[in-house]
């Protein structure tokens, strides 16, 4: 019966952990490098070299948000960085190349008359739709102008119809996208319903539909340049995830065997603490909605080393106390007490380094800093609270009194 309590505690944790594992894992956001996706940094520029205002950036962000919505990404991240940069992250997007294409387009639509006068722009649209023209079987875009646009369009077309005879090359309205002419149809009649069409030049329906989506979202208020682009295909992401899982599994296994060999019973306890430690980290990552990246997994594995260190420092101290002639029980108490400050000092410096890394790192490197920090804190908790509790229960109640079981003499 003396063992009942401690075995109960361990069992509860193990069973709870076993059942919590899958749900926790499914709740962790995976970074682009683990599920595929796009990371793009845009730099806003004005053609005349003018200053980019806060409002420009807000507007840019709003347009991008709409465009990204059209892509149907579950959890996009769009954030303004500094004065002129916009970071866009699209995890899990199926066709990363297409996404970059859509993000990078300015999509500035203009209606111009023969003499180059711009009469309407993309902001005069109320809707755009990609359709297949039933008579020609050609992909086209149906445009619907808003109230103002409809009025201007009606006025201009009636002017053209009055001014030029049928067949006159000046009786046209050309549609330009980003300065390139898409189509230049003749004006047959006055158009008062605000409807127009872009035809010609589309490879397939998808291309027309994509452009229509861009037009719906509106043109960018400024020019953008893609200064950083990283696309990871879903295949590479899945591959990295499988390999990382394997590395974590074997890393854990090796360290546990190592501890068991050198420290026997405490080694087993440390191994158990490590499992709890792993669960704790995953749980915290899921709880704070952090994103797990490839370097993040490396940080996680590395922090196992740190977690082991706390245990090792304590166990070595306990061994020393045993050597100095104390009973096992007294040694465990003294060992924990005397190594507490050492462990704290050693780990706080680690946290300092991780904090700096978080401040100055970018993207995945930040993920690494986060997991490393959580790792250090979790390792302090498991080593100081959990390991201590179990070892105390084992020794204070005299369940174990043979120093050899503490790896003494190795």
């Amino acid at each position: 019966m003396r063992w009942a309590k401690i075995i109960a505690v361990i069992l509860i944790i193990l069973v709870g952990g076993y059942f919590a594992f899958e749900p926790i894992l499914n709740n962790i956001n995976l970074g682009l490098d683990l599920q595929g996706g796009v990371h793009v940094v845009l730099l806003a520029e004005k053609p005349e070299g003018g200053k980019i205002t806060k409002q420009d950036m807000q507007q840019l962000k709003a347009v991008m948000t709409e465009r990204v919505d059209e892509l149907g990404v579950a959890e996009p991240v769009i954030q303004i960085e500094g004065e002129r940069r916009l970071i866009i992250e699209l995890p899990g997007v199926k066709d990363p190349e297409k996404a970059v294409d859509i993000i990078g387009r300015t999509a500035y639509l203009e209606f111009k008359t023969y003499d180059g006068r711009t009469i309407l722009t993309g902001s005069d649209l109320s809707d755009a739709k990609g359709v297949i023209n039933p008579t020609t079987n050609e992909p086209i875009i149906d445009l619907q102008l808003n109230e103002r646009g409809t009025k201007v369009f009606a006025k201009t077309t009636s002017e053209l119809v009055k001014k030029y005879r049928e067949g006159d090359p000046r009786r046209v309205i050309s549609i330009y996208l980003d300065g390139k002419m898409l189509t230049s149809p003749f004006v047959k009649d006055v158009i008062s319903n605000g409807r127009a069409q872009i035809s010609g030049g589309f490879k397939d329906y998808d291309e027309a539909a994509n452009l229509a989506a861009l037009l719906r979202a509106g043109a960018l208020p400024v020019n953008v340049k893609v200064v950083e682009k990283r696309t990871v295909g879903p295949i590479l992401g899945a591959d990295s995830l499988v390999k990382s899982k394997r590395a974590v599994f074997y890393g854990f296994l090796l360290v546990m065997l190592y501890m068991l060999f050198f420290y026997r019973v405490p080694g087993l306890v440390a191994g158990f603490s490590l499992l709890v430690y792993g669960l704790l980290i995953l749980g915290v990552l899921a709880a704070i909605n952090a994103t797990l990246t490839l370097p993040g997994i490396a940080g996680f594995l590395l922090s196992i080393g740190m977690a082991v260190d706390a245990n090792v420092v304590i166990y070595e101290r306990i061994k020393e106390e045993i050597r100095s002639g104390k009973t096992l029980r007294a040694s465990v108490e003294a060992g924990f007490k005397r190594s507490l400050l050492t462990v704290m000092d050693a780990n706080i410096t680690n946290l300092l380094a991780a904090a700096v890394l978080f401040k100055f790192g970018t993207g995945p490197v930040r993920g690494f800093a986060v997991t490393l920090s959580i790792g250090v804190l979790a390792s302090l908790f498991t080593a100081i609270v959990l390991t201590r509790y179990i070892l105390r229960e084992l020794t204070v109640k005299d369940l174990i009194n043979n120093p050899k079981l503490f790896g003494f003499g190795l």
Partner: protein
Amino acid sequence: MDFVGKWKIWFAISLLAIIPGLIIFGIKGLNYGIDFAGGNILELQFENKVSTGQVRNVLKDFGLEKNPIQSAGENRIIIRTPSLSEEKSREIIDAFEKEFGKMNILRNERVDAVIGREITYKGILALVISSLLILLYMSYRFEFNFAAAGVIALLHDVLFVLAFTAIFQLEVDSSFIAVVLTIIGYSINDTIVVFDRIRENLRIQKKKDLSLLVNESIKQTMTRTLNTAGATCLTLVALILFGGETTKVFATLLLVGTVAGTYSTIFIASPLWIIFKTTREKRGKIQAQKA
């Protein structure tokens, strides 16, 4: 083993590894990846058999055939080029698809040189700030001599990794900063446990000869130093063996850093502390005599 008395030997071993590396670093520099230098990486997986020669042929049409083309197993090819515009990148991909049939774009990364400069600048800043923070924290918790010895030991580890990277021309990307800062964290963590023991022994045995006391402290903490290093190395070896290409260089550098950190903890940090302590005390005495 006499850790303190033979310090000249231990320091010489370190310098023997570091100095040639730094010379190569000075001449050849590092093998900077696109994160620092700017440029384009395209990784493709073809469904048909495709050789690097065939890929080079296609790139000829774009005047890019002189760039490194690397085979990464099972019809996987990695192409590194200077920064490509979006249009050009798409044209190249289309050309590949036309020539070789179905393929998967595993990775298409482009970083402009502006971003690269920023990452470099931030990395150096991070190194300096974290070193200063650690110096401050250790001066507060221990004393300045310990702090200075600890920081020099960690710079030793960073230089060692830098030398290793330069000698083997391993590709350096933005995760290199993470490597360096992690090594800093590990190194100082490792050193502090020994310093902590020296401090404790100083309190207990006040009159003892410093070298003897330090040697003893190192021996007392030796098992811990080695076991921690062993466990950490095991996780890194698992990462190198099972973790896939992307993290291999990262894990290798961390492994090198861990080994350097363990070495400096045993052979560099504590002897340095004695040197600092005795010279400062001597200087103090001389000044006291003058006054």
